């Protein structure tokens, strides 16, 4: 099989041709789906493990300590040990909990995360679904996640979970507006909602540079709203330890808790991946218009590495302000969205439209 790390279409094409020459079209499709599904499961599992480990190490560095060091060299096997422990725990269902909803909630949350990952282009040719309304799909599907959280809080039959879920639900629903609107500003600049089209459009220059002022404003708003979406950082009041134990997932143990936990880190990855795709060029190396020599040097690193490099940069930024800032109160979170971010977003859209209309971008 031809394996070109610069363009995965060679790999995907050769697999497809190899399979379709052996099997019937339906069988080929079924086998391809299985391969893709397994690849995503593997990616989610491994990247989730890596992110949990990275969070612990980064957090330890900010707090002037070492983090996990004993389990495996440099603590690398710590997360694996944690997940094995979670898998072995007893699954306790609280008395009088709504059993069906209680069991359904973690699955909703994790399925939504999988769905969103499926449209993100990791490298040229390495994308599963390429709709022409890709961005709309992402915002629509990620909205379904809030149902999982509300169900978890309600069905646990626990006052603290309910309070946590209500706070979280209000927060996520509000901040989806900001996420969507800042993406709209960038769609105006890109001219297309198709994600691969957006990445292609950044071949000359990344959108955050191309759209200068409105793009930077949209980026900042997106990062703030994205952290609020994932219940992280200064917006983590749904899981505020000092107030409500563990919020909406207090009553979950074992593999169900592992799903919520994993889903939180995958959502972090999703927000960072959307930020890199729309603002920072996705897998596109750093190009600046006419500097041919510079562009060619930048092209030496394959798209896959550029993508993860940028995603990890944004994730580090989000971890940085999680461990530095205090928490906002729930009414302050909602205030921030409805009174500040929403008007800024709407104004920014106007600004971006003006910039595009009058050709004021680079």
């Amino acid at each position, binding site marked *: 099989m031809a394996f070109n790390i610069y363009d995965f279409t060679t790999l995907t094409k050769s697999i497809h041709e190899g399979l379709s020459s052996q099997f019937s079209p339906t069988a080929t499709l079924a086998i391809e789906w299985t391969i893709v599904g397994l690849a995503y499961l593997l990616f989610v599992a491994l990247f989730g493990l890596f992110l949990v480990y990275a969070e612990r190490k980064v*957090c330890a560095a*900010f*707090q*002037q*300590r070492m983090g996990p060091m004993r389990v495996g060299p440099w603590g690398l096997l710590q997360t694996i040990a944690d997940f094995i422990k979670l898998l072995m725990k007893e699954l306790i269902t609280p008395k009088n909990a709504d059993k069906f909803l209680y069991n359904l909630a973690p699955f909703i949350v994790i399925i939504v995360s999988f769905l969103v990952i499926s449209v993100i282009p990791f490298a040229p040719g390495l994308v599963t679904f390429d709709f022409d309304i890709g961005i709309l799909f992402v915002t629509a599907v990620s909205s379904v996640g809030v149902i999982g959280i509300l169900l978890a809080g309600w069905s646990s039959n626990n*006052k*603290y979970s309910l*309070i946590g879920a209500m706070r979280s639900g209000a927060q996520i629903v509000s901040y989806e507006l900001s996420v969507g609107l800042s993406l709209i500003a960038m769609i105006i600049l890109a001219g297309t909602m198709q994600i691969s089209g957006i990445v292609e459009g950044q071949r000359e220059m990344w959108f955050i540079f191309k759209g200068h002022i409105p793009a930077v404003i949209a980026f900042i708003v997106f990062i703030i709203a994205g952290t609020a979406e994932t219940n992280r950082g*200064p917006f*983590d*009041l749904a899981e*505020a*330890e*000092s*107030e*409500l*134990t563990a919020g909406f997932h207090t009553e979950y143990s074992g593999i169900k808790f592992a799903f919520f936990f994993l889903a939180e880190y995958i959502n972090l990855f999703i927000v960072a991946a959307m930020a890199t795709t729309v603002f920072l060029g996705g897998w596109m190396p750093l190009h600046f218009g006419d500097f041919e020599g510079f562009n060619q040097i930048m092209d030496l690193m394959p798209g896959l590495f550029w993508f993860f490099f940028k995603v990890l940069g944004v994730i580090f930024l989000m971890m940085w302000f999680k*461990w*530095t*800032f*205090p*928490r*906002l*109160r*729930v*009414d*302050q979170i909602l205030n921030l969205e409805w009174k500040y971010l929403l008007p800024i977003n709407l104004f920014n859209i106007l600004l971006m439209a003006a910039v595009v209309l009058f050709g004021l971008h680079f």
Partner: protein
Amino acid sequence: MDELKEVLITTDDIRTDEYLINMGPQHPSTHGVLRLLVQLEGEIVHNVQPHIGYIHSGIEKMTESLSYPQIGHLTDRMDYLSAHQNNEAVALCVENALQVEVPERVKYIRTIMSELSRLASHQLWWCVMGMDMGALTTFFYGLRDREDILDIFEETCGARLTVNYSIPGGLMFDIHPDFQRDVKAFIKKFRTKLPEYDRLLSGNVIFTERTKGVGILSKEDAIAYGVTGPTGRASGFACDLRKHRPYSAYDKVTFNEILSDVGDTYARYQVRMAEMWESMNIIEQLIDNIPEGDYAVKMKGVVKLPEGEFYQRVETARGEFGVFIVSDGKKNPYRVKFRSPGFSNLFAINHIAKGWKIADLVAIMSTFDLVIPDIDR
């Protein structure tokens, strides 16, 4: 009996759109085993009823079977963050009752140790305040700096926290030869770290939004509830015993009494931060001038107080700590009562938390800086 019924919250008199939650006694990160029964409507707090006694150890009863020098040992364990100040209170009470004059050296060392203990207590308060607000990194910064003070305590007194250092008549041991050098090195280092605390938390807009204007305790209420210490001073109640009723070497140093007239959570925060600066100034004025002399006066083998009642108050990091000894001439006290600052401060929380949200209740609680064994004894 009717008044009691009014005070107790039962499920009979809850309106249907309010609910009760328990914060504590088991809780991942509140300040000890305190149970707060909070009556909530949505997010708004309507009533907070503290239930104490989960760590009641019968300390006051235990003192009735101990001799006077042994009482000091128990006071370490009450407000463990102001351990030396508690020891000093008992020592001063017994010394005043017996009219024993301690050498100047003892007074200076006691004051320095009390101020170090105040600094350590405020450092812990700051790191826990940040943690309660959600800035988990502050926990490690505060503890890192506190380690230096605990090392100094360990060198001189033998223990990091429960120092048991001041006894009636003087001190248990003389200071370690490295004491002055270590204290001066610590002060020099901490003066550069304290602005870091300000940069991390005090100026942060999220923090100020959550603390400014929240939970205002007026001066009249502070006096009525008997709220002393930095909490009272933030409401304008000038209650610093070091200034108004000086003891040990406090009349030999110049320092400011930090007052604020706002009385909100941010004021309580700022008063404690400013007190850390003042404590360092006090220590610096004393550390080089410790007079030579004995570290203790020889007391009789069996200490017997004359019949009567004796009271001594000191300013701990939390407020006014008082020791009231009733003696009937024997070698054990008849009754010892400790006036604990936490007990009076705690019951002001209900009054000021009404109408605020759960997150504000957490902020108010952490600025009151309660140590539960101090309340429960």
